[in-house]
């Protein structure tokens, strides 16, 4: 077990190295550059800028320098946001995305799993149809529709909640509600459907029949014999879902003006802000890799057939 953790942790290094290398060169293959403007920049100025950011060095040298910086946890200066380095941009926005993401994911998991279990137990009854209709709606309607509709109803018409803003502002925690609900909906929907299917599978399994044949009461059958097996597919979904949700939903953060990481994903790519692109890629990759690692451990804890040798 300890060996396994160490091996997986060491495995992180080459993975990240490959991700950094590939993204570094791919983003530079894209036409244009950080200083390209619609109006041509005078050569003199462009050369000065390039010298300032060491872009006049050969690409390999730039790559080497960047790697060296990353090793020191320095993601470099932003090419576009003057006076900001990538570290501070991420440090300023990632926590906001994390808060929104964790709240939404927590709600989606709790409600989704509960809805999945109840639907599976009451298959083809009213509750089942109700939950699954909500889930279908949640999957089909895009966030950029749900968000503005919520805003229209609860902020504009009813005036219960602020239209946008963030928890550090005037309205405090109230600002978290609508973006969190919007972001929760599709994940809730997916988790509910996933867990319903897997709980149905387990409920029909031979070993649950055995448990019933032993005379165990329904509650014990569910909690001791059904839940663990039914959760496995949901657990393997947590990894990618977590990475997606906490690195910020671009759409939701834009709609509700949440100062999160999401907008940097889009803007840095459009601006060819090379260092910021790399920064967001690294943050996303690290979270994804760590979450998958964590999920694998959790999986092994839940399923004794998984071995770490």
């Amino acid at each position, binding site marked *: 077990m300890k060996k396994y953790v160490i091996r997986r942790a060491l495995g992180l290094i080459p993975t990240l190295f490959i991700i950094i290398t590939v993204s570094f060169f791919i983003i530079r293959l894209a036409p244009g550059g950080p200083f390209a403007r619609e109006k041509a920049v005078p050569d003199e100025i462009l050369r000065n800028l390039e010298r300032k950011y060491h872009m006049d060095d050969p690409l390999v040298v730039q790559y080497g320098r960047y790697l060296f910086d990353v090793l020191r946890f320095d993601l470099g200066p932003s090419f576009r946001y003057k006076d900001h380095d990538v570290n501070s941009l991420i440090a300023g926005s990632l926590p906001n995305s994390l808060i929104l993401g964790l709240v939404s994911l927590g709600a989606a998991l709790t409600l989704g799993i509960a809805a999945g279990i109840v639907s599976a137990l009451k298959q*083809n009854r009213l509750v089942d149809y109700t939950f699954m209709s909500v889930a279908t709606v949640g999957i089909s309607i895009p966030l950029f529709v749900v968000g503005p509709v919520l805003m229209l109803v609860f902020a504009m018409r009813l005036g219960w909640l602020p239209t946008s803003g963030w928890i550090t502002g005037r309205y405090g925690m109230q600002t978290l509600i609508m973006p969190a609900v919007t972001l929760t909906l599709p994940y809730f929907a997916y988790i509910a459907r996933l867990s319903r299917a897997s709980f149905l599978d387990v409920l*029909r*399994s*031979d*070993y*649950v*029949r*055995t*448990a*019933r*044949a*032993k*005379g*165990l*009461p329904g509650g*014990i059958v569910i909690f*001791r*014999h059904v839940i*663990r*097996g039914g959760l496995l597919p949901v657990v393997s979904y947590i990894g990618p879902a977590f990475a997606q949700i906490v690195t910020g939903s671009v759409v939701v953060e834009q709609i509700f003006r949440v100062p999160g990481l999401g907008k940097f994903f889009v803007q840095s790519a459009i601006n060819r802000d090379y260092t910021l692109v790399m920064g967001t890629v690294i943050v996303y990759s690290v979270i994804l890799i760590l979450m998958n690692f964590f999920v694998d451990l959790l999986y092994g804890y*839940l*399923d*004794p*057939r998984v071995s770490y040798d």
Partner: protein
Amino acid sequence: MGTHRSSDEGPILDVRDLTTYFNTDEGIVKAVDGVSFSLYRGETIAIVGESGSGKSVTNLSIMRLIPSPPGRIMKGQVLFEGRDLLNLPPGQMRRIRGNRISMIFQDPMTSLNPFLRISVQLIETLRLHQGLNRHEARKKAARMLGEVGIPSPERRLDEFPHQFSGGMRQRVMIAMALSCNPDILIADEPTTALDVTIQAQILELIQELTKRIDTAVVMITHDLGVVAAMSDRVNVMYAGRIVETGGSEDIFYRSRHPYTSGLIRSVPRVDRSRSGPLYSIPGRPPNLIELPDLCPFHPRCEQAMEICRHRYPPAYSVGGSGSVRVNCWLYRETGAGAEK
């Protein structure tokens, strides 16, 4: 191996006119259609038939473990010590399951919970039905594992099912099923999924242990070899009904129903010449949806007569002591007194 029937004691399990239907998109499947049989204390009976003949559904209905929907027990009685299990409140039914009547299933690879240690799965039954504390239950669980022939039971108790072979898992299932000294053990094709070399050992184990604790056994199987080896009486099922019932010697050596004869002829035997292909009953079991009032076996029967196509045959008593009953028009003349 005689029957343990005594004149003053009634059957411990009396199944009467048990009828279980399944609602499917294609229509109502009459999986079990008026099955009656009785089981006396300590004896072993067999229920024999092809896949889909209703053997397993019969026994799951007795335990009220039919998935519902789509399954539904339409009518009938299952009298256990005189009480109808079909009308018992759920709480009382649970006190019977795994305690007075227990089951082992066909596939030991999937019948144990892969996520729980063997100890948990054995102990939960003992604590539930026998009110033992954790320590006592664990001791008894280890003893049971030893009795079913699992070496170093104390250590293996803490292992997970995937650490056991198929035969060993079936032994664990047997230990679990017999741990509360049940009155009845229902064994649903307990050897079908196992290696041939293991099958005999498992059957022997079931026989030996149930005899020791005086447990009656309902052996569900499609393997007539199993039947011949261990059962006192045999019920042959076809298309959801019992078509022939009698002592196992009678059935095996003097089968009356053409279906039973076909089954017996389909068994490979070492004492017969190997020339020629093995016999198999032509055709396939009927679709159990919308079965009209006729003998469902007639399309496959070499001795089918006109009447077979129009009415289901009643039960005729045949044989010396009248102990064999067979639902077949062939015995209309010779069989004594048709029962409805």
